[in-house]
């Protein structure tokens, strides 16, 4: 690549501006404008891509609504009661709340198809729970939420899997089933890390709750515990789409908090709206910047260059899968997941097919890679979101995610090399692959 090309210079500018402390959204927009300027293209394209990208990306609207839902849960005593319940179950183990965070992500994964929505939705609540009375450091709490949110789109429903099916012709139904075991395996790998770290870092043990108190605690938390049931039931009975479920989550939380627990004042209500609006704007700027920069990446045919580079290498199926894993993990460090899925992944599908790799297996592996990309710096959306929610420096959060990242890569290796882990459940339901 020519180091003085508009693309290289834009990439340097974006990296430099971001490292010098300019907000990342602004860095990407400014760098992309620099590209358009140097390439002699219409600089109005920056506005065009940002505005049309936001206008046509309907599913992303679930983000502000899940943020709002979490705020509504926080102002009521929903969070407290849910915490009391989880505490009663697993709090007695060392690092109990970290386990709760992961367990809760499994529940949320069944409600949402987006990791970003999971982090935005549960992140604030979990952050408050875990850091109360200094139980865990804020950066560790943020790291656990970031890594556990990765499970969201691996367990169905899953927006990335729908996108993969679109570019690969693989069955959405079987892809969804294929994600169940890997999602649980990811969660297990994270829990192992929590358990291993818990002793060394002397994580708090919550006071054991007597068994006779359990029915009462469960009853108190019951409306909150019903939330996933209401949402999943609502989605799977056709009352609402997965995007709309975000609004229902917010409404449900508001009704429970204000109506049932009677713990919401008008002031609380406004503050929830205001905080959510602020968070929405700062996360939205990041999405906006990615949309503009994606144009530059696309117009420069970066994915095509990568493809040309790979052509001619004589690879075995295992070698190819390793290569794809490494490449997607590297790309995940610098690019937005949807762009990778829609631009880079199609390049590999013909090769995967030719090598006899099952496309459902390949799809699940690809989606996991892209999800891991959400927590790998420098460009890791989940890290940014948790930095925003927790107010902690990015580097502290990254440091605390590293052991989890390692465990998840081990899990990914198992899922990559033992296709049965992915394909067992779909085959149980009649998948022929």
């Amino acid at each position, binding site marked *: 690549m020519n180091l003085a090309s508009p693309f290289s210079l834009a990439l340097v500018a974006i990296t430099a501006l971001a490292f*010098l402390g300019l907000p990342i959204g602004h860095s990407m927009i400014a760098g992309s404008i620099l590209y358009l300027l140097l390439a002699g293209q219409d600089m109005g394209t920056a506005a065009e891509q940002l505005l049309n990208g936001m206008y046509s990306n309907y599913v992303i609207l679930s983000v502000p609504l899940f943020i709002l839902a979490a705020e509504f849960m926080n102002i009521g005593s929903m969070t407290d009661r849910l915490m009391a319940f989880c505490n009663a179950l697993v709090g007695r183990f060392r690092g109990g709340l970290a386990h709760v965070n992961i367990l809760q992500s499994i529940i949320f994964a069944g409600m949402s198809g987006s990791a970003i929505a999971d982090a935005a939705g549960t992140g604030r609540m979990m952050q408050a729970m875990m850091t109360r009375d200094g139980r865990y450091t804020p950066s560790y709490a943020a790291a656990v939420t970031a890594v556990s949110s990765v499970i969201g789109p691996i367990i169905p429903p899953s927006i990335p899997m729908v996108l993969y099916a679109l570019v690969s012709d693989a069955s959405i139904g079987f892809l969804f089933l294929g994600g169940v075991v890997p999602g649980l395996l990811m969660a297990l790998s994270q829990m192992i890390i929590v358990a291993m770290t818990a002793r060394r870092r002397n994580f708090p043990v919550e006071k054991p709750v007597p068994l006779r108190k359990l029915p009462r605690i469960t009853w108190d938390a019951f409306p909150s515990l019903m939330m996933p049931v209401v949402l999943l039931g609502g989605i799977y009975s056709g009352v609402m789409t997965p995007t709309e479920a975000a609004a229902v989550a917010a409404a449900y939380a508001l009704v429970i908090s204000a109506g049932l627990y009677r713990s919401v004042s008008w002031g609380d209500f*406004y503050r929830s*709206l205001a905080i959510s609006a602020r968070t929405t704007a700062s996360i939205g700027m990041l999405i906006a910047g990615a949309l503009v920069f994606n144009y530059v990446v696309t117009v420069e045919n970066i994915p095509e260059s990568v493809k040309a580079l790979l052509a001619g290498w004589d690879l075995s199926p295992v070698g190819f899968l390793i290569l794809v894993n490494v490449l997607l993990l590297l790309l995940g460090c610098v690019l937005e997941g949807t762009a990778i899925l829609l631009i880079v992944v199609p390049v590999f599908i013909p090769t995967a097919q030719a090598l006899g790799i099952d496309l459902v297996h390949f799809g699940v592996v690809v989606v996991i890679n892209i999800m891991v990309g959400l927590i790998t710096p420098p460009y890791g959306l989940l890290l940014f979101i948790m*930095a925003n929610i927790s107010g902690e420096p990015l580097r502290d959060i990254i440091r605390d995610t590293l052991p989890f990242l390692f465990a998840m890569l081990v899990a990914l290796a198992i899922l990559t090399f033992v296709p049965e882990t992915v394909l067992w459940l779909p085959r149980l339901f009649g998948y022929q692959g």
Partner: protein
Amino acid sequence: MTASLRATGAWLARRAENVASAMLAAMFLAFLLQIAFRYVLGLPIGWTHEVSVILWIWLVLWGASFVVSEREEIRFDIIYGSVGSGTRRIMAIVTAVALIALYAISFPAVLDYITFMKVEKTGYLKIRFDWLFSIYIVFIIATIIRYIWLAWQAMRGVAPDDFDPTKASSGV
């Protein structure tokens, strides 16, 4: 800055936050209406979809222009967070100048694009796209002014992190 000017600024900031909150509330309501109309009344409506998307764009760009504070913005702070205030001031000036220059250079082309969009209207509410997208013009101008202010503050010797509204009002 005089006390009355500062009070006016704080008042305006609160009103800007009111507007952003109202936009989010409206988006929330539009979604609920959409579900209620389709499922409860069996009358699918589409304009709610359009309203939510428009509100989303306006909420993000309005919020980024007038509501989100420096502290709330998502940044990559590995270097930024570990240097002294003098270095951070220089970094703030450099990035501000680059941002102001690039946003200003793109401004005529951006204006041209957005005014061009008068040729299209939205599917339901028939809102002209130049009006819908005009918030981007507001965003660019507000951002340029904000960064001129930030650069000016940095030059005057106020390191970015010290620029904190809670501290600014603590003298009262």
